[in-house]
């Protein structure tokens, strides 16, 4: 007990260097935990984003890419699929429902999704939750828009507001569809998925916006007013992707094969779970690299502590002689140095947890906006505690090195003060 009191006071006395050491360990621990948390939350978030959909269909590319752009609004499609192919597949007897998705426009950094009313009906997330309206109702006019919770909140839109959609999915766009403003008809309740950051309009709305466009550019001198657009045939020629629900799970593989072998167009159908698994496998390499990296950083942090204690050892030989003179045994000296190392490791781990939560709190909005990652602020999990325990243990082991040296020195020096 006396030794722990001494260790506390000794560490406090060197609070600047000790503080830096604690910070170094803390940062490394925050990184270690952060990587783990990111991995867990990303998986959980992605897995929770789509549910109840049997197949996702898009132009032939990679399953992961299709999943990312159609569901997570990350990246963009290389190709569209024709409306005819879509109609063909909806006719398949096993198909119970489909939801077409048309992407490619944005509103102030938020992706615009053209879809049908089925979307609000059929889309499920987090193990079967349907979409709910916080206020308003689905679009029923060509120029109606339904906002995701976050898009509405951050842009400060309320029901009935006008919004102008820009061409292209980027944050900044020079070409705006400013001649055809949309009106907010509804705002969805928060889901914790990319739906929150999406502006939903009808497929007809997407067509109307582009009525006076040809091959991705406005046709000069040819303007179609909003009212004129309303009168036009607004059936799309192409969509980006669509979601498929089947009447029986058994049919999934048969229909997948049917779509992948579709004659009219090169299509790709993927099962969301399978595509997710592929994504995990892809991410696994990066995750492991990050894990190894953060382990190295933790090692660096602990080595910093070792350096700090070892370099103070020479200067503390007098102190050790004094302690010996008042009756401390060499084992007490060993304990003193061990306690200091353990204390630093403990403080470092504590600082790491605090840092991590601080970073999450600050980084949450950015992660959600930029990467579609929702980081919940949950309690550390059993695995985290295990990791923390191992770091503290490693701290003690590392602390054993100077402690053993101090032990030997105090045995050899005894009461001599010849330093």
């Amino acid at each position, binding site marked *: 007990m*006396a030794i722990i*009191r*001494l260790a506390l*006071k*000794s560490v*406090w*006395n*060197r609070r600047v260097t000790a503080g830096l050491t604690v910070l170094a360990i803390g940062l490394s621990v925050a990184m270690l935990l952060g990587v783990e948390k990111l991995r867990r939350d990303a998986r959980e978030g992605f897995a929770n984003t789509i549910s109840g959909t049997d197949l996702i269909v898009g132009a032939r590319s990679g399953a992961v890419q299709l999943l990312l752009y159609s569901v997570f609004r990350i990246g963009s499609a290389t190709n569209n699929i024709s409306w005819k192919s879509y109609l063909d597949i909806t006719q398949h007897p096993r198909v119970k429902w489909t939801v077409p998705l048309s992407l490619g426009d944005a509103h102030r950094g938020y992706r615009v999704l053209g879809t049908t009313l089925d979307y609000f009906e059929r889309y499920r997330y987090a193990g079967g939750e349907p979409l709910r309206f916080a206020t308003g109702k689905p679009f029923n006019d060509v120029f109606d828009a339904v906002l995701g919770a976050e898009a509405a909140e951050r842009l400060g839109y309320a029901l009935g507001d006008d919004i102008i959609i820009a061409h292209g999915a980027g944050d900044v766009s020079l070409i705006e569809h400013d001649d055809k403003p949309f009106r907010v008809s509804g705002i969805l309740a928060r889901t914790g998925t990319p739906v929150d950051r999406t502006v939903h309009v009808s497929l007809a709305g997407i067509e109307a916006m582009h009525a006076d466009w040809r091959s991705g550019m406005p046709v000069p001198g040819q303007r179609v007013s909003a009212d004129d657009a309303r009168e036009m045939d607004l059936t799309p020629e192409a969509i980006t992707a669509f979601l498929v629900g089947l009447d029986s799970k058994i049919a999934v593989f048969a229909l997948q094969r049917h779509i992948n072998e579709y004659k009219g167009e090169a299509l790709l159908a993927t099962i969301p779970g399978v595509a997710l698994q592929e994504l995990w496998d892809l991410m696994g390499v990066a995750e492991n690299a990050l894990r190894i990296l953060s382990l190295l950083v933790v090692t660096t942090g602990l080595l910093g502590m070792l350096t700090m204690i070892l370099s103070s050892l020479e200067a503390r030989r*007098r*102190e050790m*002689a*004094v*302690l*010996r*003179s*008042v*009756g*401390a*045994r*060499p*084992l*007490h000296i060993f304990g003193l140095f061990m306690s200091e190392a353990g204390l630093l490791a403990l403080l470092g781990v504590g600082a790491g947890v605090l840092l991590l939560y601080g970073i999450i709190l600050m980084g949450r909005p950015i992660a959600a906006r930029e990467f579609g990652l929702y980081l919940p602020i949950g309690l550390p999990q059993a695995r985290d505690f295990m990791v923390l325990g191992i770091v503290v243990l490693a701290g003690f082991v590392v602390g054993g090195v100077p402690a053993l040296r101090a032990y030997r020195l105090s045995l050899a020096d*005894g*009461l*001599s*003060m*010849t330093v």
Partner: protein
Amino acid sequence: METTTIAAIRKDESERRQVYLEDARFAWRPSECDVIDIDRFEVGRGERLFIAGPSGSGKSTLLSLLGGVVVPREGRVEVLGTDLSKMPGRDRDHFRADHVGIVFQMFNLVPYLSMADNIMLPCRFSHRRRQRAQARSTSVKADAMRLLADLELDRPALLARPVTDLSIGQQQRVAVARALIGSPEIVIADEPTSALDEGTRERFLELLFRECDTEDTTLLFVSHDARLGRLFSRCVLLDDLNNATTEAFT
């Protein structure tokens, strides 16, 4: 342990004998020459003994022997009737904590502890000294404050200061208080005044003597400054005592 030790002392016909060396020989390494070779050396209870010797005459080694940090290669080192050379290291550390107070030449204080905490340090390692300090002043802390007052260190401004900011004279007095807390039978002072100037040195010795007198503490005072010897009840030249160094230096 305590009662048997005391009883043993009481029964001893030379009951006032607190330190006793007989044919004690010590070398730091087996291959090296002895640095201590003392045929016979006795210190009585309450004695104020001055041990004079130039540096290198084995003073520090002698103190290490008396403090039980090292044991002689052969012979006896008895402190309070207990032969330290027969004790395991752990018990010697314990014995030192209980019965011996030590004042070094300088750097006596643990830099990260307050004045009071430095003084109370022996009571953290010795149950006996803690009890004796409590018996004297109700609490260890109170006893530390009493000693600080005795040694004229109880000014509030001084108490608040980190010990590293104290003057050397003040630091040495704190060390004396620490050596005396819990009334150990023996206080060993290793050149405690060599870093002090003339005026402070006299004052320091006065205070040291006064405190040792009130507790009837045996004082072993080692110094190369033979002029101080006149203030002590007995003076010994280490060279006369120690055959090893005599040989080494002549």
